[in-house]
């Protein structure tokens, strides 16, 4: 930390504050800023009033493929790509802006965000490391999140051809959707929980195992 510009540090603290407010996890903050772990933990406690949650970041690309998650992550990633390609934003700025826009859009639609901030960030990292790709739907021409190297030739998106279960069991609230198409753990009989809560549960159980 010695010899570092105070202005740069102030900027980083500001960035970290934005990220924490959006719900970023500690690993994320460590990767995106050069602030020390102690400082980040202190900052987190000051802003949120609690210690940052422990545990690993989600690492599976499969989560983004289930029905509702795929819709939400495609929505987010399309905005993100716009911000980078056309908006000329830096990576982290693009993530922050597009995540805010995503939340705004979901709330406008009267739904609840399925993609939490950590997931959104992981999504971008997966794309950066070529684990995911955007496939063009042959019906609506929209771009959707898909596994890398999946065949593009006859691809039809989850909105043009929703899985039968997703179409039939759709209730009006988005909360049920999450348990339906989103999280496999919640689908197994447990009551509806938010995706971040689900994530925390999964990580806690994997740590104790």
């Amino acid at each position, binding site marked *: 930390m010695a010899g570092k510009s105070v202005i740069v540090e102030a900027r980083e603290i500001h960035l970290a504050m934005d990220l924490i407010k959006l719900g970023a996890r500690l690993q994320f903050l460590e990767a995106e800023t050069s602030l020390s772990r102690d400082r980040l933990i202190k900052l987190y406690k000051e802003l949120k009033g609690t210690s940052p949650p422990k545990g690993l970041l989600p690492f599976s690309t499969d989560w983004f493929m289930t029905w509702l998650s795929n*819709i*939400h992550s*495609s*929505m987010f990633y*399309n*905005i993100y*790509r*716009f*911000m980078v390609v*056309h*908006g*000329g*934003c830096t990576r982290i700025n*693009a993530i922050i*802006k597009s995540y805010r*826009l995503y939340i705004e*859009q979901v709330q*406008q*639609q*009267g*739904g609840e965000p399925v993609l939490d901030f950590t997931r959104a960030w992981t999504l971008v990292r997966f794309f950066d490391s070529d684990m995911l790709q955007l496939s063009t*739907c042959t*019906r*609506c*021409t*929209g*771009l*959707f999140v898909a596994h890398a190297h999946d065949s593009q030739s006859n691809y039809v998106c989850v*909105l*043009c051809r929703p899985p039968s279960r997703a*179409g039939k069991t*759709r209730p009006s609230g*988005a909360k049920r959707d999450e348990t339906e198409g989103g999280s496999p753990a919640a689908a197994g009989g447990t009551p509806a929980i938010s995706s971040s809560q689900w994530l925390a549960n999964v990580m806690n159980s994997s740590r104790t195992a």
Partner: protein
Amino acid sequence: MTRSPLYMQILKEQERNVIDTGTANDIGDLNLAYLLLAKRLVTEDIALAMYRLGMSRELADLLGSLSLSQIVKLAGSSLLLCRFRFDDHPMLSALTLEGKNPALQQAHAAILLSGQQLEAVR
């Protein structure tokens, strides 16, 4: 008092004119609202404005740099200045045929619009 056919025709014409200026005024109002909104969005954050308006940076910059009097002049037209963004057939049919869940439809529209080619200065 009987009215001559010519008089009746003039009356009809006038009526039509009233309707016409009404339409033109509506369009002018919409143009003005659109340009003012665009200018405000661009001054707030250009990247967000480009996303919301579906515009290239050049065009967004251009709109942002318009003066108020330029905006008023530009808006006072009987032609609409903004374009319908779902101008592509597969896109439009995907959105209109679905018609079941409005939230999903909105999500679909958002995905399609953000992947769309931008309106740009050519």
